[in-house]
């Protein structure tokens, strides 16, 4: 393939995925301008290493992996927000949902089994984004890649350089944590309380 063809292929791939890259970058950095910088830097790095893309059908996981590596090596170090280290990051594949649920309170389990549909219908977008942004990074990233961008577990594993089983367990734990955050926002929680 000629330089012109390669450049056309690369440009079309970036064009196709730039919204998705920005969306993921925004949830990683949580700052608009940092997300723009991260995407631009990832595009530059990806072009510089275009020869490492052996299978062009894998363009999407390939460029997202470069972006994630750039985030880890550059942006995360610069972040003034501490990296959350107090959560089990789901590395254990036996971290099954049943054991996760056993850690939760009875009230949460009752709600989780049948939360009010109205609550989801009325849930404000910014509250949901706030809940997502407050997830520890390891879980936030897999939830965004799988849930929002439609990556498969295998593709997500490739992007993050982890095992597919770890993606699966992080998805379970991430969703449970997200539901716990939303549970804390449920209507009526603070009713009757006076300052």
């Amino acid at each position, binding site marked *: 393939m000629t330089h012109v063809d390669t*450049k056309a292929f*690369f*440009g079309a791939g*970036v064009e196709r995925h*730039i*919204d998705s*890259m*920005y*969306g993921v970058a*925004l*949830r990683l950095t949580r700052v*608009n301008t940092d997300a*723009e910088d991260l*995407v*631009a830097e990832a*595009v*530059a790095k990806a*072009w510089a290493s275009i020869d490492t893309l052996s299978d062009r059908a894998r363009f999407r996981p390939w460029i997202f992996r470069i972006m994630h590596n750039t985030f880890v090596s550059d942006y995360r170090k610069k972040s003034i927000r501490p990296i959350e280290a107090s959560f089990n990051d789901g590395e254990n594949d036996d971290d*099954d*949902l*049943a054991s996760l*649920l056993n850690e939760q309170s009875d009230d949460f389990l009752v709600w*989780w*089994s*049948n*939360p009010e*549909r109205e609550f*989801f*219908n009325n*849930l404000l*977008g910014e509250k*949901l*984004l706030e809940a*997502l942004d407050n997830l520890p990074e390891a879980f936030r990233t897999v*939830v*965004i890649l*799988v*849930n*929002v961008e439609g990556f*498969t*577990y295998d593709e997500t594993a490739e992007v993050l350089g982890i095992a597919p089983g770890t993606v*699966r367990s992080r*998805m*379970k734990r991430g*969703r449970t944590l*997200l*539901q716990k955050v*939303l549970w804390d926002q449920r209507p009526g929680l603070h009713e009757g309380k006076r300052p």
Partner: protein
Amino acid sequence: MKHDIGCLQAIEAFYAYLDGELDDPDSIADFEHHADHCRSCFSRIEIERALNQRIQKTAKHSSPEVLRDRVAELMKRF
């Protein structure tokens, strides 16, 4: 072939089911059979679906024009 699976087994499978990661036809049939007959699991699946849809709708973003222009300028130098 459909087998009766319990709630615990169904819960273990339902995120994979929702994410399209349950690719064995028998596992899918067993799961759907359970969900069709268990009100509690059916309700959980519906809620998870609703939450997934809200997350997708809320967290999707278009890239800003300034970024698209910046990347276009960058590409000219390649």
